[in-house]
């Protein structure tokens, strides 16, 4: 059983590494999260725009590639983009 797990997990992780689109998305998402955390520590002008921008890119990445929204009906894609537009505009205008 132990041997099985020791072989199965690395083998499956290796196969997952072959899933290109998912891996690229994952790498970008993690990178943007770290960049956002660093940006907030630095005193940069208009950091809010950058932070919200990173969040929006991550939101699109998860919904389109992890949730497979890119294969969904155009209605859902447009609905999501409208939501993001309203959300971003509200946050940036009020803030």
């Amino acid at each position, binding site marked *: 059983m132990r041997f099985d797990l020791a072989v199965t997990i690395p083998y499956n992780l290796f196969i997952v590494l072959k899933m290109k689109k998912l891996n690229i998305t994952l790498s970008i998402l993690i990178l943007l999260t770290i960049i956002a955390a660093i940006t*907030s520590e630095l005193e940069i002008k208009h950091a809010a725009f950058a932070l919200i921008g990173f969040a929006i890119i991550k939101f699109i990445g998860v919904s389109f590639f992890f949730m497979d929204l890119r294969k969904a009906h155009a209605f859902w894609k447009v609905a999501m983009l409208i939501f993001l537009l309203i959300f971003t505009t509200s946050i940036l205008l009020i803030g």
Partner: protein
Amino acid sequence: MALVAMTYYDTQEPEIFHTSRLQLNSTIGTVNTIFLIVSGFFMAVSVRYLKKDEVKKSSLFLKLTMLGGLLFLVLKTFEYSHKIEIGLTIGYNTFFTFYWLLTLFHVIHVIVGLVILISVHIGINKKKVITKIEDVEAGAAFWHMCDLIWLLLFPIIYLLF
């Protein structure tokens, strides 16, 4: 809506929001974001395997997905206990009222998501499979929704003010 309201209150009490935000540990928030993102990634892989009828592999990645959710909850519990210890509770100020309400509401969704994933995991591993791919996809959609909410909560609560 609550995040928009929070941003509005920030314009009313900018000093309180800024000092309160600095009392949050952004490193914990960042690590938690990574836990949820990786967990969402494993969920996507799990669904792909199930679509190929590879139940064992799908089940393995579903377990890894749940592990990501559990790690998120462990870190959140640590964060909450520290906040309660130093008195930063829900009534401390406006910022912390929003912080507790929004993050607790999210945590409840993560717990519900984990229950759904456990039920899906049991369902796909039964000898007589009764869980359809649509059920798994619905569970995955709920899990990704938790992920999406956190992706908006994290920068606004932990980084913005």
